[in-house]
């Protein structure tokens, strides 16, 4: 029997007012995967995430979660399955970190609710798992961007959802916090959590994601294992930027720009990367011959 995907997007299109944003998207995500959405600004990544969260309704096609059309699920039961981890944001009121994480318990509550001892334990547990218990009584507005992102992940944990949608979680974080965030994502993914996240950094995909989905002008242009999909060729097509995807003896793969302001620095490259370079030159060649 074929394994049922956790999330399935079928022939889904969406547009704001007259302008179509996404065209006939097909995508399926297995439980436990880390899927990274890559694409230039305005390509529709965030919109796709909002659609999968049920915050927007597709114009056509369908999105299902565990085989059920999410349009048919009410907001509450959907929130118990899929959690939204927004970009770190500033909020208008200085709630404590614990209050923010407690909001994650709302989908489990009835009409007029009070938080119970159980809720508080779940929240303490979530704070503990992300090692931010010491922040519990600090104001959310006064902690650092990285700590805020961890707070929002803790809230998603408290929500009890096993699937996390993250819209550019690393944006606005300093370098160290970005890496710590990736750590947390890997850790949780090993416990069986599913992540769908958008990012502007292909390296983040290369380092932690199982799959990369590349979106341009509202369509998926590539979808596959990161190592297969992310190459200097695809990045050139996606971002119109010339980069080399390099790997030094056994290290993570990195993206290095070929040229910055007319100054070209290719350096000496390892075998694999040289092959990529050759590939790219062929691509350039083709393009040039197209132009001619």
């Amino acid at each position, binding site marked *: 029997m074929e394994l049922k995907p956790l999330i399935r997007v079928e022939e889904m299109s969406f547009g704001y*007012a007259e302008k179509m944003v996404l065209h006939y998207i097909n995508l399926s995500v297995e439980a436990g995967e880390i899927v990274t959405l890559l694409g230039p600004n305005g390509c529709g990544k965030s919109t796709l995430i*909002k659609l999968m*969260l*049920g*915050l927007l309704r597709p114009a056509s096609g369908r999105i299902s979660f565990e085989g059920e059309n999410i349009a048919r699920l009410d*907001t*509450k*039961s*959907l*929130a*118990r399955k*899929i*959690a*939204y981890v*927004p970009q770190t*944001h*500033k*909020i*208008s*009121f*200085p*709630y*404590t970190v614990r*209050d923010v994480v*407690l*909001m*994650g318990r*709302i*989908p489990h*509550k009835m009409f*007029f*609710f*009070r*938080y119970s001892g159980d809720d508080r334990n779940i929240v303490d547990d979530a704070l503990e798992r992300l090692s931010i218990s010491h922040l519990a*009584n600090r*104001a959310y*507005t*006064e902690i650092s961007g990285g700590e805020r992102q961890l707070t929002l992940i803790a809230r998603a944990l408290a*929500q009890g959802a096993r699937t996390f949608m993250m819209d550019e979680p690393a944006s606005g974080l300093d370098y160290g916090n970005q890496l710590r965030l990736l750590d947390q994502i890997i850790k949780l993914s090993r416990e069986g959590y599913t992540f769908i996240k958008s990012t502007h950094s292909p390296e983040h995909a290369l380092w932690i994601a199982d799959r990369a989905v590349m979106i341009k002008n509202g369509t998926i242009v590539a979808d596959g294992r990161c190592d297969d999909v992310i190459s200097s060729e695809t990045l050139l097509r996606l971002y119109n930027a010339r980069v080399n995807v390099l790997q030094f003896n056994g290290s993570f793969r990195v993206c290095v720009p070929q040229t910055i302001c007319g100054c070209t620095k290719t350096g000496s490259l390892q075998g694999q990367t040289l092959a990529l370079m050759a590939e790219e030159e062929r691509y350039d060649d083709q393009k040039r011959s197209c132009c001619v």
Partner: protein
Amino acid sequence: MKLKKSLFPILFAIFVITAGFSLTLGKYPVSIADMVRFFLYRAFHVGIMNAEVCNLFGSIFFDIRLPRILAAALIGSSLSVSGAAFQAMFVNPLVSPGLLGVLAGASFGAALSMVFCTSWFTVQICTFLFGLFAVLIAVGIAKMHKGNTILLLVLGGVISGAFFTSLLSVIKYIADPYNQLPAIVQWLMGGLSLVDYRTLLIAGIPQVASIILITLFSGYLNALSMGDEEARALGISVERIRMFLIFLATVMSALTVVLAGMIGWVGLIIPHIARMLVGPDNKILVPACAFIGAVYLIVVDDVSRMLFNVEIPIGITTSLIGIPFFIIILRQAKKGWN
């Protein structure tokens, strides 16, 4: 955080003491001892009291001072609670209950009926209905367009408020300048002297009900103040809950105008003071606002009555006390603003 458990008993005690003490304040001097003696005599027939004095005290306390104090408490609570709810819902600490035009609409309704109707009851009904109507227009304008609902609602409120403010000017212009105009102007400055028990009962029940309901819903307010998308991702039917809360806040704000005309600033300042005292968590903030708002307006009314020989309209006192106070707390209040 040990304070939290004893917070509400303390607030309630302060409220009762303020209300009780205010009973002794007024033109006719009554000492606290007199008051205690009177209540002991009336309730338990303890002690001796001259029948004439007893009647006099009874009429001072129950006919003159108590309705004022109750009205001040109700109005203070209602404006503060709806202010706190609006601030959370519209994700903006600078919002006040008049945001969607309810106060402008109710003022217009009051002025209109003061010119064209004779019965005070009709004036009150008209005041209430136009308050509701103004918010309905604001919501209607917001619903006509697609986009950021919060922004559209604020815009709708600005439009609706401006519309009814200009209509109010029209009424003022055509009103008879010897009798009607002064009555309208005085009403718009706010005053508690016209309050009677029947109005108190009719306005008080929905107001208290709204305060209780908003308190029960206050858990959602925290999530609503994170923005629409996040609140929805947390499983909240944002539109439905927001409309319900707007309805409650509108009803109670419109009823404050029915009771005592326009009283500004309370709904903006009290939530800030309460936030400084008990923190931003709406589950505690909203009920705290109810008590603090009540105490504040009782005190302000005492000041209006006692400061000069002539009573100052309470709307003027709230602004005159509120504005410098707001400047003082601004430093604290702007913590956490973007």
